[in-house]
């Protein structure tokens, strides 16, 4: 298998467009979770989320999610210096859940209420696969093209699948990432499940009351290390291993002992051929639901032991961005290795005694880490762990 390098990053986050704004936001411990403006929240217990601020850019004939995805994908390719000729063989793997549903919902709402509603162009782009077709067409990517839906771990799964294609020599490089815009279905669904905190979420806090949702997009360029070095491309990190498992236990609840999570983390370690003791940081799934954080901590303790591992949750600042979360958090993990700074868990006031880790409360911490993991878990028991190694 060929080593897989990360040579490009692109982000559109609740801190705005660009990797720089994202890193400044999360390393600064800034919480971007605010009252929702995109959709009607009347009658719901929770009325906040982390929205991408104005200025998404792109043609409004495209869905909001397509525009987020395009901007992040473009930044990643430019960052990696991948021009048009190099893109014809490049794979494109997109993790998505909501697709262009925000626009489709608006049409359906109107129609259901008897208001004449002409079909918007974006309606044909309401499925998750629309993003890949738009990105592939606009940016000229001609290799294997896939859209993966593994619920909240979709973004991480996209990176794992792309890494496989590069490692196995199917393609020399791949653009992979996740995207989700806020949708009514997502907002209403998590409200119905009573999983949302009416205030901004507090992962790993003893008094956490649930998650906050968000939106965004992030992409990475993954490339054969030899190819990257040959063209003198800057290498951020190596995607050294990954693990993807299924709980086969419950549609919405993780296995009570985190058994599938443990297998995913161990598979990533195995592929990277590193010992658990060599990993210094975990960017946790860390949703701030009482159940997730407790079980994820249980699983991490099983794999890494108590105490030593530094853990933080990016969701404390940008909420749970659904299919984008896995990639946004992978970008955070890579930047942690590059900048030697661990982004904090914002709003963590009273650490939960059941979480036996230093969860870097409120303020970023300087730490040079060689190996770091990013955990992502989703409905259906879909577990993905990515393991990154600092570039030599």
């Amino acid at each position, binding site marked *: 298998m060929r080593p897989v390098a990360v040579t490009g990053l692109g982000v559109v986050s609740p801190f705005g467009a660009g990797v720089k704004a994202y890193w400044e936001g999360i390393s600064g411990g800034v919480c971007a979770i605010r009252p929702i403006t995109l959709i009607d929240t009347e009658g719901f217990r929770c009325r906040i989320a982390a929205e991408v601020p104005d200025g998404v850019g792109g043609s409004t004939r495209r869905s909001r999610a397509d525009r987020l995805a395009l901007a992040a994908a473009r930044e990643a390719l430019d960052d990696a210096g991948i021009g048009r000729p190099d893109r014809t063989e490049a794979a494109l793997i997109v993790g998505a859940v909501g697709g262009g549903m925000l626009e489709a919902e608006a049409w359906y709402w109107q129609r259901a209420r008897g208001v004449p509603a002409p079909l918007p162009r974006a309606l044909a782009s309401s499925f998750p696969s629309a993003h890949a077709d738009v990105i592939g*067409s606009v940016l000229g990517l001609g290799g294997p093209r896939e859209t993966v839906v593994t619920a909240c771990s979709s973004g991480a799964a996209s990176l794992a699948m792309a890494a496989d294609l590069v490692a196995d020599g199917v393609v020399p490089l791949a653009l992979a990432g996740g995207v989700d815009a806020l949708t*009514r279905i997502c907002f209403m669904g998590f409200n119905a499940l009573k999983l949302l905190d009416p205030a901004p979420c507090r992962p790993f806090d003893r008094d956490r009351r649930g998650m906050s949702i968000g939106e965004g997009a992030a992409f990475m360029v993954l490339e054969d290390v030899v190819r990257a070095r040959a063209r003198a491309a800057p290498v951020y990190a190596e995607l050294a291993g990954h693990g993807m498992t299924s709980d*086969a236990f419950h549609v919405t609840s993780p296995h009570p002992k985190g058994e599938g999570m443990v297998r995913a983390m161990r598979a990533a370690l195995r592929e990277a051929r590193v010992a658990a003791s060599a990993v210094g940081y975990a960017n946790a799934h860390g949703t701030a639901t009482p159940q997730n954080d407790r079980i994820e901590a249980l699983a991490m303790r099983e794999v890494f032991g108590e105490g030593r591992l530094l853990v933080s949750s990016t969701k404390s600042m940008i909420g749970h961005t659904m299919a984008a979360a896995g990639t946004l958090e992978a970008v955070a993990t890579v930047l942690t290795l590059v900048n030697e700074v661990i982004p904090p868990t914002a709003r963590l006031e009273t650490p939960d005694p059941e979480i036996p880790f230093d969860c870097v409360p409120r303020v970023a911490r300087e730490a040079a880490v060689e190996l770091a993991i990013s955990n992502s878990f989703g409905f259906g028991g879909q577990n993905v762990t990515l393991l990154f190694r600092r570039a030599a």
Partner: protein
Amino acid sequence: MGHRVVITGIGVVDGHASGVVSRLVDESEARRLSRMCQMTVAAGRLALADAGLDTRGELALLVGTEFGDMVSTIAFVDGYLRRGPTGLSPLLFPHTVMNTMAAATAIAVSARDLSLTLNVPTVAGELAIARAAMAVRTGRIGVCLAGGADEPPALVLDALREAGAGAEVRDEGAGFVVLESLDAARARGARILGEIAGAAWRALPARPHGIGRAARSRAIAVALEEAGAGVAEIGCVYTSANGDGPREEWERALLDRALAPHRPPQRALCLPAGRHSGLAARSVATAASEAGDRLGLVHAVARGGNQVAIVVAGPRRVAPSRAVEALASAEAPPRLARSRAIEGLASAEAPPRLAPPSLAHWA
């Protein structure tokens, strides 16, 4: 090179085959699961039974879908539109995510390894099988269910048509093949239905929902190269034709150029009832069944440019072993339309018929 990938089971449930579903889904599942998930679980169980696999082992699952469980999604939204926030069903919400069929099936058959749901128009089932074959070949997974499932609501089909996304004829159903390495299949004495000799998927230049102009196909060339085969060895092509004229014309042009100067016969198994993502499993298994000493090519291309090519060999081309000797000497390859599992189910004492599942149970 990697492992050789063989097909050891097939299970397809078409939407109208409700009797099969009720025999394969128990009462508790029928209450909990949407119709789409029930069909997927049933197809998975059929395929595993056909393969003679104990489902307690490590099993991967790759599900291709074009629409997910859109019927449940619409029901979830309608609950809100009728009654506001109190009308929202927390039980329906997970079905709004397209991996719900994979989740239900993983639980039902204890699939604890890799689980992926791939969403793409038209070629979803073929893509899932191609991706799964690659994962078996490279040793990333050992044995898997690969195929697809769909239940397209009329509302969505009408809207897509009006929005200019083609006029494809679509049906509902689910289907899987069981794929594993040749070594693993031989070790457990499995009946081998055929081999995925090569598989590839690429994107052709095209606008979203559009028909491309390119007639040069890299996917077919790569799949043939992986199979170590030439175009002359292709005995039949199983296409993705389903009533969308311009797309079918494009597919013909791609095949004509890729296979020139040969022009093997082309078949589309979905017509006239329509296509669903589970039919890819039927195409692959039929290609293996009918290949004889030649090869079958399962091909699909979607508006927007996604293209999949799978080169399939029949059991006679798989290197002889004790497991296949009996098949090789038989007069005819196994007929997949009435495979062992389906015949067994049809003749077995049927469990009590369950009341037709209804989403009303969820309200």
